[in-house]
């Protein structure tokens, strides 16, 4: 019996990424952001999510991808964590895709990931490959190991 899992997908530079749909609280278009001087590099700023203050993490910087072109506003993928919501800034939001277990493969060891293991696996979709992002590790500060993984 095959088990299915739904992924919320998004585009980040030339990467097509997915996060388990249950982990995603909501997706939002660009929100005004308050920058936080002295913050870690990966933190882009703080957004007001209906009265909740949410830290926004620039996923491009986190994955060490080139910076977003100027004038292009990122989208928010708000992810639930035990310590409250955190927003991941991405380029474009994609569809929710159904993935069968058997489409999933471990990330190739040659994948440039700087040993951070942020990519948990690769899904072979019909027309392209989707990388599964380990949201927990992506949110954790670089160097800090995500608990329980």
């Amino acid at each position, binding site marked *: 019996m095959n088990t299915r899992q739904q992924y919320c997908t998004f585009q980040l530079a030339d990467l097509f990424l997915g996060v388990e749909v249950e982990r995603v609280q909501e997706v939002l278009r660009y929100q005004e*952001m*308050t*920058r936080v001087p002295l913050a870690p590099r990966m*933190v882009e700023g*703080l957004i*007001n999510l209906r009265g909740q*203050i949410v*830290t926004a993490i620039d996923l491009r910087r986190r994955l060490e991808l080139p910076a977003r072109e100027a004038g292009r506003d990122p989208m928010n993928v708000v992810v639930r964590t035990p310590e409250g919501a955190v927003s991941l800034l991405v380029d474009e939001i994609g569809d929710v895709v159904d993935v069968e277990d058997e489409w999933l493969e471990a990330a190739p060891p040659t994948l440039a990931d700087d040993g951070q293991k942020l990519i948990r696996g690769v899904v072979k979709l019909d027309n392209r490959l989707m990388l599964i992002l380990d949201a927990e590790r992506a949110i954790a500060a670089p160097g800090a190991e995500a608990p329980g993984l």
Partner: protein
Amino acid sequence: MNEFDDVVNDFLVESHEGLDRLDRDLVQLEKEPNSRDTLSSIFRTIHTIKGTCGFLGFSRLEKVAHAGENLLSKLRDGEFALDPAITTALLQAVDAIRSMLTAVEAAGNDGDKDYADVIALLAKLQHNALRAAGAAPAHSTVPLPALPAREPAPATAVAQAEPQWDPVQRAAAAASATPVASAGPADDVHRAVAGGAVTDSTIRVDVVLLDSLMNLVGELVLARNQILQHTTTQDDSVFLATCQRLNLITTELQEGVMKTRMQPIGNVWGKFPRVVRDLAHACGKRVRIEMEGEETELDKTIIEAIKDPLTHIVRNAIDHGIELPDRRTAAGKPAEGVLRLHAFHEGGQVNIEIADDGAGLSVERLKAKAIEKGLVTAEQAAKLSERDVVQMVFLPGFSTAAAVTNISGRGVGMDVVRTNIERIGGTVELSSVHGHGTTLRIKIPLTLAIIPALVVSSGGARYAIPQVSLLELVRLEGEQAKKRIEYIRGVPVYRLRGTLLPLVLLNRQLKVPGAGEPDVVNIVILQADGRQFGLVVDEINDTEEIVVKPLGKHLKGIAAYAGSTIMGDGRVALILDILGIARMARVVGERCERALSKQAETEERAEEKRHTLLLVQVGSRGCTAIPLTDVARLEELPRDSIEWTAGRQVVQYRGEIMPLLWLSDEVGCERLGSDAEETLQVVVHSDGKHQVGIVVDRILDIVEEKLDIQGAGSVVGYKGRAVVQGRVTDLIDVAAIVARHGALVGQS
């Protein structure tokens, strides 16, 4: 959770409240052994606990309660009088019950300890007391049941007239009995509930629910702020009127919800009489506790936060502060010491004063201790002002108790007290008169959730500064901005009414580009850790009530921020942590404190020998340096203000007559034609009591240098010489120079 658990939980909550009341009542009873009200209240409480635990099947617990009740019933019936041994035994029984209740809470049964020793002790005391009473009736000390009690409360009168009261009456009596020790509103609530909820006017509410209500109100306040900001662009009168109403209702709702979380400080103080009694007995001291303002209300979270610091301070006062009775009598004080707690509201803050009439702090002993612990050098200690010395008790690793007791004196404590109080936005001050006592003043905000704040801008972003740290605002424009800010080797300072105030540039601390108007300098004068400094910001916007929200885990570690908030326009602003910024900019943690902190010691070993020096020109000799620690202020005084007295030159300065010394005369060189100049450059030196003006020819600079002093002590008036900024520079020993003119200084 099943029904039985519910019952047990109720029992636990009620019993804990009952035990707290027992502690208070027993101590009260010891003071007024004839108070039948108190005795009845104690008896009722223990009887209720006994009854309920029998019903719930906690037999061990029941046995202890029963033994206590037996003893109490004899007391109540006037068969013998209360003495300290009985009080102690009863308090032990209370402790035993308390630990059994904890076991019930943790494991669901009353544990396997049967406290046979406590039961035996209670029985023995009862036996002995009865025998003694039989031999010599204690009528003189205890009124017979028939005698009317002094000012009996109505409820107690019922209880007295009808010893075999039925449960309803008991509940009524419990609910309406006048509390003897303290009577905050919350106390009445507890009483009513413990007595079986005769009154429907109060209900128990889960704190979690209150917290979530508080959060919702916070959101509402933010939404209201947003709407109000929006109204400025509207002219629909109906809409505006509705907004006004919304505004009022929100404010009232906010106040109302805040009130639900308020608790009288008496809830924390309630246990102090017992603490004081036990401690005083243990130390062989006699201490009376006086409390004023128990009804002063504080937010629950703050009550929780100050519980431990307050307890610590009270313990300290008894252990270190109040002397042994014979020493007190020798000093001409009553043998019984007084510990006074006073709480009151002032300026939107709660003030708590804890004063003892004990020995006070000895400045000399504190200094000796600090030197012994290697916290300061003897030289530094000599220069410390009295205030600085007294503040040293807040340093980590400092304890003045001659002997380490099991109560205190291990050198942890006051620093933790201060940290805990500052964590909730409060301040602690200590003042002490040697031989007459010590007073600690704590100021804490009423609530943490919504605070007034000053909104400023820097680098294009807004920041909120909690108003508790705010002293005043200074705006300098045009020429003033250039002239009034002075630089000491790139470090800006500002003279605020004669005091040199270090300036911290917020832009520089946050590493953001400045974006203020040119030629305008906005300075926010702040206080952190007892030191003042000026924070330079681009713009000062407004004051606003802000709702404090914690920062996410990525940002928690940044010292500059205390939290975040949502402004009226819906955007997020960061709340500055003033203490954190002061520490980042090294405004606090200087001087003795830098040398004192153990951690800093290792980190800053390299800087250990760094000194901040004032470079001055004296005669033609070029550079001479005065340690900045010897400098109180720098002044420019007009030459014609000099007056003569007894052949000495003096000036009137700040309501004092300040003698002047010419440094060039002191070091034996010619004045550099400065006689022609209109103004005198004066370095004001203060030894804590007297001020001396040291006239120099020119003030050159202030530098921080690592000094390698040579030729120390070879010439009086010099500390030696060292290379400062690549030049050989003489170091002036101000203290030695002033000492030469000892009589002159003493006269002033």
